């Protein structure tokens, strides 16, 4: 009897070991940007329910993700700022866009309703440079005929932590303002000429909501979910546009992904009548070459991404992200087939 129990226990233990080994093979680890975290975790949750494959994404920031993939401690990394082709080649990485989002300006000006205020690129740059300090400034009034702007000081609110959102926002200002380019530049955290710093999108949103006369930039989802007073922006074509999913799609559709090596593509200040000017893609980074033993992991990761492209669009829109356009997905798949190798052989999902 005892003997039989022992055998059964050993069998159970062996089964457990097998199970653990199998589960390990179906585990994909990722880390990086916090901006796409909500949609990546939603996709991962749904995908786990359907296939049993566990995709674990930790939102530790783009910089941390890039370091992790360079040190080979994760299977993929998320980054809001794309790496250049040179950087990719140097680190032996591949990069492709996964999802698109937009940065929205939000204000707290008494009497101004969401979507009412119109901002031009130069007005925006001057406000964040600290050159326009009152809401009833003549230039602001000239851009907003019919809007009653109060005699109230402008309080600029920016991110205090390094972030992909700041990178995108400063990238836009860098492109549209020569003064911004020479004085501040584009980075994940910069030397802000004016204003107060708040931690995270939620910090900026909270500060803008509580400080009268504040203006800040947050990701689109935060502006919507917090019911904040967003503004219109004048785009490259000279049209004033509202921040909407359609306006982000318009900006992405006009981009020429095919001739961007390593998908180095920043979607700020894109042409197009409907394009929202502060749009950006969030990227996935993977190692270009993996050892043969990692074949299953790499395939699991690619299968997951493939599934996200094919079935994740509605979930993305629900969370106010823009799914990648189909033509771009085709280019990404061709890129996988050409660039990724496992144990020296090409790999497909």
């Amino acid at each position, binding site marked *: 009897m005892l003997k039989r129990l022992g055998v059964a226990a050993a069998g159970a233990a062996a089964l457990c070991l097998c199970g653990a080994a199998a589960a390990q093979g179906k585990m994909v680890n990722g880390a990086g940007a916090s901006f796409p975290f909500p949609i990546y975790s939603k996709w991962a949750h749904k995908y786990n329910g359907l296939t049993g494959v566990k995709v674990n994404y930790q939102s*530790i*920031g*783009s*910089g*941390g993700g*890039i*370091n992790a993939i360079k040190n080979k401690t994760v299977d993929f990394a998320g980054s809001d700022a794309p790496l250049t082709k040179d950087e990719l080649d140097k680190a032996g990485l591949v990069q492709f866009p996964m999802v698109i989002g937009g940065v929205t300006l939000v204000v707290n000006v008494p009497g101004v309703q969401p979507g009412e205020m119109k901002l031009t690129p130069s007005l925006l740059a001057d406000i964040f440079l600290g050159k326009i300090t009152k809401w009833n400034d003549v230039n602001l009034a000239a851009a907003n005929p019919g809007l009653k702007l109060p005699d109230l*000081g402008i*309080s600029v609110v920016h991110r*205090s*932590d*390094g*972030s992909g959102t700041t990178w995108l926002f400063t990238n836009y200002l860098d492109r549209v303002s020569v003064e911004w380019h020479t004085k*501040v*530049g*584009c*980075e*994940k*955290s*910069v*030397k*802000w000429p004016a*204003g*107060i*710093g*708040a*931690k995270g999108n939620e*910090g900026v949103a*909270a*500060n803008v909501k*509580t*400080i009268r*006369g504040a203006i800040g930039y947050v990701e689109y989802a935060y502006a919507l979910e917090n019911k904040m007073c967003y503004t219109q922006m004048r785009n490259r074509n000279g049209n004033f546009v509202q921040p909407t999913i359609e306006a982000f799609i318009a900006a992405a559709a006009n981009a020429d992904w095919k001739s961007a090596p390593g998908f180095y593509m920043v979607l700020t200040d894109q042409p197009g009548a409907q394009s929202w000017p502060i749009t950006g893609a969030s990227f996935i980074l993977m190692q270009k070459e993996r050892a043969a033993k990692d074949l299953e992991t790499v395939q699991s990761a690619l299968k997951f991404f493939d599934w996200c492209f094919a079935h994740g669009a509605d979930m993305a829109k629900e969370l106010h992200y823009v799914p990648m356009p189909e033509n771009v997905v085709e280019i990404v798949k061709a890129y996988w087939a050409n660039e990724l190798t496992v144990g020296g052989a090409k790999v497909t999902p």
Partner: protein
Amino acid sequence: MTRSLRGRTGGAQRADALFRALAAGCAVLILAVMAAFFVRLVLSAELSIRHFGWKFFATTNWDPNALEFGALSSIYGTLASTVIAMAIATPLSLAIALFLTEMAHPAVAKVAGNAIELLAAIPSIIFGMWGLFVFAPFMAAHVEPVLAKTWNAVPLLNLIPLFRGTPRGIDLLTSGVILALMVLPFISSVMRDVFLMVPAVVKESAYGMGATTWEVTRRVTVRYGVYGLVGACFLGLGRAIGETMAVTFVIGNSHRISASLLDPATSIASTLANEFAEASDPLYLSSLVQLGLVLFLIAFALQVVAHLWLKRVAKSMGTL
């Protein structure tokens, strides 16, 4: 009988020696960890120390894009917010502790004392969020405009630009007040314990000589417990100087030095909390580590100063 006793003594001696070694080992471990901490910080900060030299402590320029880093604004914000906090918390704590030990009804003292200790158990993130959502708007709407108006109406005082600019609630003043609230329970509960340790006989004899409550407090209680009182303040100071989350939420995180308490500032701890995650350039990372080293050294220097000062106080008071 004698043999067994001797045997037991030998065993007890061995146990004693073992315990002594264990205790000494624990004490040495603390020192070793501190030393290792220091060495590691210096090693990681080496790049920045070599690159910037003394300029690191003399400039306010903090520009991750140009890779130029100066710690002055962070050091200033750390010290200024701590000074504000201590200026508010010390007299308040003293008053609270005296009230609890000398004046309040024992039942009231017990309830109030427990409530204060409960305040010490609130995590700092809660203070930060409360500061951001509730306290900062309150400061901006009700406290700061009044302060600014009063201050700037007084001749001569208004020449010092301590309360200039738009009151936004997200500034050095608010962070100092929040810090004061956070360290208040620590200081006041230690002070209360110090006062409770004053022997009743000593106080009673002073009362017996016809001294008033105030006289007993000033001449006997405070004098008797001065060592502990200063110790309580330094405990609070140590906590205030390294506080991170609560400060990050309300200080405004701006690398500038302004004379006005109504302007945003930054502290060493909040700079680290904000910028560490995305600092990818080695020089940037190294500069942040050097900031950490500076905080380490400030805290260390404070301890040394506290001990030296306590020695002097003890000498002049003639208690030790």
